[in-house]
């Protein structure tokens, strides 16, 4: 279990001013869960992870790892990194180039307070290497391994001490696309098998959505939304989350009226749109209606008895193999949509765009210029 309470970390800049990297962040990772901190670079996710690892010293707050306080600003506790029950995989893998594969993995067993006998070291290292399918490469120099193998080696080294908690700092970002996809599955399988509490940091939404039990989206040093992957994707609570996770169309407007439970009508430049409502929005509020490209339905003829239908013109069509990526002009607005590749569309063609109310969501408007 990891518990972080009111974590604050600022970095001193060269000219005396300081940057708040993490601003009162609190969250809890239950035993055996896979928890992901997701956000753009500079959002404070890596700093949070490094504070938990003990590589950074926070300014204030409290950090508990598997029941033991490792940091607390209240009574000045700070357990140094090498005394914390953690294993960590770094973005660069941090494989020591002067050691063999075996010695890299054996290192954690040979330093610190609890040392192991050679026999035990050999057994534990062997097991760890087996787990990541590097069993027969022990005598190689670490630098002779390929990128994917180095990544697994880093994982074996992090696991060999059987830590309570596994910290992963963008471990897949240095791999090529194919390998990344495979490692995603392998990593998750390994975590399930070992049932080890895992904190994962990434800027890649696909990684976060596909691997996590729980995702916390971070921006500018704070957690803006925490939830199950499906909820984060389907029900973003802020414009930032909607924009950052997946691709999103946005239509600015003003909330006209609220209709019952979480539903409302928004007046936008393309007309009135019925949609789901987030938070406690009251009529008259500036809102943004967001809708995912794959939720948009296209019609050749105006469908009867359907609401949220707008006339549009096909601006561009791109064939991407899996689907068609089209943009459709609705007056001054342009909507991005993904359509099945069987659909035949021509540029300039006029058609009817349906924005299903269940897939549209009105969110309070932020000053969107800085985020997009």
């Amino acid at each position, binding site marked *: 279990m990891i518990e972080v309470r009111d974590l604050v970390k600022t*970095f001193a800049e060269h000219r005396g001013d300081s940057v708040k990297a993490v601003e009162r962040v609190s969250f809890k990772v239950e035993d055996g869960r896979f928890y992901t901190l997701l956000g753009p670079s500079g959002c404070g996710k890596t*700093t949070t992870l490094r504070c938990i*690892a*003990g*590589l*950074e*010293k926070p300014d204030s707050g409290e950090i508990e790892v598997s029941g033991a306080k490792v940091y607390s600003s209240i009574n*000045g506790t*700070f357990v*140094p*990194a*090498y*005394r914390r029950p*953690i*294993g*960590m995989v*770094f*973005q*660069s*893998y*941090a494989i*020591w*180039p*002067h050691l063999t594969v075996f010695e890299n993995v054996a*290192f*954690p067993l040979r*330093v*610190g*307070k609890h040392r192991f006998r050679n026999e035990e070291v050999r057994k534990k290292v062997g097991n760890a290497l087996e787990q990541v399918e590097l069993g027969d490469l022990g005598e190689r120099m670490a630098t002779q391994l390929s990128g994917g193998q180095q990544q697994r080696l*880093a994982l074996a*080294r*992090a696991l060999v*001490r059987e830590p309570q908690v596994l*910290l992963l700092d963008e471990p897949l970002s240095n791999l090529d696309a194919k390998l990344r996809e495979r490692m995603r599955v392998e990593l998750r399988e390994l975590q399930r098998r070992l049932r080890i509490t895992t904190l994962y940091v990434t800027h890649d939404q696909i990684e976060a959505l596909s691997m996590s039990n729980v995702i916390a989206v971070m921006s500018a040093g704070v957690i803006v939304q925490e939830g199950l992957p499906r909820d984060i994707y389907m029900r973003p609570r802020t414009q930032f989350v909607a924009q950052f996770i997946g691709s999103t169309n946005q239509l600015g407007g003003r909330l006209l009226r609220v209709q019952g439970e979480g539903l409302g009508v928004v007046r936008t430049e393309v007309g009135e749109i019925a949609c789901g409502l987030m938070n406690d929005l009251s009529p008259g509020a500036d809102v943004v209606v967001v809708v995912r490209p794959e939720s948009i339905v296209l019609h050749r003829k105006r469908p009867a008895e359907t609401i949220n239908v707008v006339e549009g013109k096909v601006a561009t069509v791109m064939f991407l193999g899996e689907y068609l990526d089209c943009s459709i002009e609705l007056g001054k607005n342009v909507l991005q949509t993904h359509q099945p590749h069987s659909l035949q569309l021509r540029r300039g063609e006029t058609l009817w765009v349906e924005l299903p109310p269940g897939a549209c969501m009105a969110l309070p408007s932020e000053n969107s210029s800085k985020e997009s």
Partner: protein
Amino acid sequence: MSTIALPRNVRNTVPLLREPALLVPLVGAGVLTYLAILPLFMLFVGSFQVEVAPREFALTLQNYKAAYTSEYTYSTFKNSVIFAAGSAGLTFLLGTILAWLVERTNTPLRTIFIPIAVVPLILPGVLESIAWIFLLSPKFGYINVALMYLFGLESAPFNIFSLPGMIWAHSVGQVPLAFLMMVAAFKSMDPSLEESAMMSGASTWQTLRRITLRLLMPACGSVLLILFVRTLESFETPALIGIPARIYVYTSEIYLAFNEFPPNYGRGAALAVGLLLLSAAGVWLYTRSTREGKRFQTVTGKAFRPRQFDLGPWRWVGFGFLMTYFLIVVLLPFLVMLWASFLPFFATPSWDALSKLSFENYQYLYGFRPFWRAMQNSILLALMTATAAMVLTSLVAWIVYKSRLPGSWMLDFLAFVPITVPGIVLGMALILLYVAFPIPIYGTIWVLLIAYVTRYIPYGMRSASGSILQIHSELEEAAAASGASWWETFRRVTLPLLRPGFAAGWIYICIVSFREFSTSVLLATGESQVLSILLFSMFEQGQVTVVAAIGILMILTLLTIVAVFYKLSGRVGIQA
């Protein structure tokens, strides 16, 4: 953000003794201040004093008056500038042509030339000057004699005892440096920049003129500047050729002030302050011009696969240039030194002289005590300096780049200061310091050790920080995350990873300490005699063939050190 967190207990009120990570920077700062700042301070103070270590302190400007308003002031200034500018220009020209031929053209045999071009680095500057005196002296210089004989000339065509002679003798010794710097500049140039010029329709020569040379301009400027400063600081050629020829530059003026009877320390110090300011200005300009590249050059300097220019039939001209350079500049000084070392007295090569060749000089040296003492001192100093300087700079580099202690940039600055201090100025400063200070090391090899370590700290810093920066901080953090404490991390991860840079810096400092001249000339006496100074004084006394034998033994010793080093480092897997 990119560093390992130092283990620190917040509640510990006396953290220093328990925290090596905090103690080390303080000691480092102290040592560096002592080595780099204190002597300069004493020099500055001394230049305003009537006598060394006065009983009462009285400010005076008379030293500056004596130094800068004499009848020689103007000629010294003129000679210094001509000598430095001429050498910088000639060295740069030769080095750039060599680098371009080797790096960027299809000149035949250019690849085997790269190691050959660097060979003269092993030849100490004192020997370089002596060899060229042997070759170009108007009375007995071999080249002069040969040309007079061949063309029936009345008088010697060359005179080494002139400003052009000084420029030549100094330049040829510096060419390897310019060569290496220009090779690096050529290497770090993105070939696609030239290729896109060609794709835009520019011919080979247009590309060379309008793209290649333009892109190289900043690099050329900084190379010229550093060569200028180094020449200004040098004393080998001014001592061996300049002083007999009565052509004085700043370094020789300082030396002469010191050699007056009684020594005029005040005037020497005043001259030294002036030279120091000049050289500091040069270094300041240099770092400004290379500000972007300097610090990270060695680390992230990306090496590209260079484009090669097809010289066509001109490649044979290039080949001729390489061969001429090799024969005259690399080989001839060695040969003449070797030849002279077997002669009982200096003579031109002839059948008659051939019959006189003997090992007499070497036999003489075998029983010559001062030689053995100097040899022992030089070897001892080289080994101690290299080790001390590299240990010190490795720690300092770690503090500067890895600990994020506030103010650690100060250490970087302190370690950089000695690069602005000309060798002879440092010698002067150390005399003033240790004559005034009640530490009885003046006249021993310990003062030389201090001088050498001080001089070569910047070089050590360069290789140490190069490899420290290459150590990704996550490598150290991974050790901490694996349960290793600060010392365990430093010992088991940082130090082993540092080894290549340590070794490279060590061997370099070892070589330059062994041949150090311009600081030792003021500090080495009697018991603390070193080889380069022994050479100098015996040459002044006219024992030229014995000097040649010492020179040969010196070169052999250097080669042995390098060979042993490569053998050892090869075994532990270091590519220095």
